[in-house]
């Protein structure tokens, strides 16, 4: 009877241990994922600032068209897309 109880207790301990280990792994993974998402978001914001600078340069001294300036702020990528020329595959060795 005592043997059975001890075995049961051991199993419960093992199960709790496994659950704790799993939770720890999940938390570590979530932390890493969060960090990479923050980094990715920062990169995306930096890239968008670059798009905006390029679009604003494209429209510099464009006397008329406040709507165009507003579009450059809202969707600089659209303006860059309209102006791109010479699109070619990227070659990196």
């Amino acid at each position, binding site marked *: 009877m005592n043997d059975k109880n001890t075995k049961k207790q051991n199993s419960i301990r093992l199960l709790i241990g496994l659950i704790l280990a799993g939770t720890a792994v999940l938390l570590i993974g979530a932390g890493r994922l969060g960090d990479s998402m923050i980094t990715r978001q920062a990169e*995306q914001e930096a*890239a968008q600032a*670059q*798009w905006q*600078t*390029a679009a604003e*340069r*494209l*429209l*510099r*001294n*464009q*006397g008329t*068209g406040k*709507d*165009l300036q*507003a*579009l450059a702020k*809202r*969707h600089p*990528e*659209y*303006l*860059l*897309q*309209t*102006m*791109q*020329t*010479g*699109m*070619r*595959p*990227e*070659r*990196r060795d």
Partner: protein
Amino acid sequence: MTSAEYKIRTVIILTLLLFWAAGAAVKVYIYSVGDQETLLKQSRPIAWRLAEIPARRGRILSRDGAVLAEDIYRCDLMLRSLPGKNRRGENLLAKLKANRIEAKLPETSAELPAVLRKDLTPEEIEKYTRIFRGYPEIRTAGRLERKYTADPAVRDLVGEIARNNRQERVGTSGLEQEYDLDLSGRSGQIRVMLDRNGSWIYETLQVIRQPENGRDVRLGKTLAELKNNGEGPRNGNQRGMAGN
């Protein structure tokens, strides 16, 4: 089934699963670590594209600030290739019809590229870029148009520009040619990934090099002086402000 047979079957199934898992793990390792560089290199020409963003040409101004020549951004809706005779092509035609553009479609590809709508407003640029995303046949194509002063005497002094064989705009006569080095900028460069339809994946867009606009040139004479004396501005000119 006896207990021994059951155990043997279980062991066989588990062993097979173990081999499968090991094989999959090896494949994942090979793709993500061993061959990563090679595969990335192979993917670049398929998905990644480089393109140029032109720089604005500097303005030519008289001493009193009248603009004699400047770049104006304009944008047209262009058809680059005819819609295919499949469901995708039909969808595109339906979209063109819904936006009342289909009437301007050329009948043969010899007439391509064709302008479907000229001088789009900013709202139309936004609208059409969204609507025709996923249809590389249609493109909102921007351009920098050189706008000159209306006065014919001064216009002659300002001169002309033309595209060279690298498709860059260069001054070919008058002040445009004389101050070409100052007025010309340096184009920028972007990198973007395309999806299977050839559309931009905006999240991947990177500006590798910002365009550097040309510098404005301010002349040493006022507009009235330029109109009145056509002796040529060369001696009375001075270069002006930088611009980017």
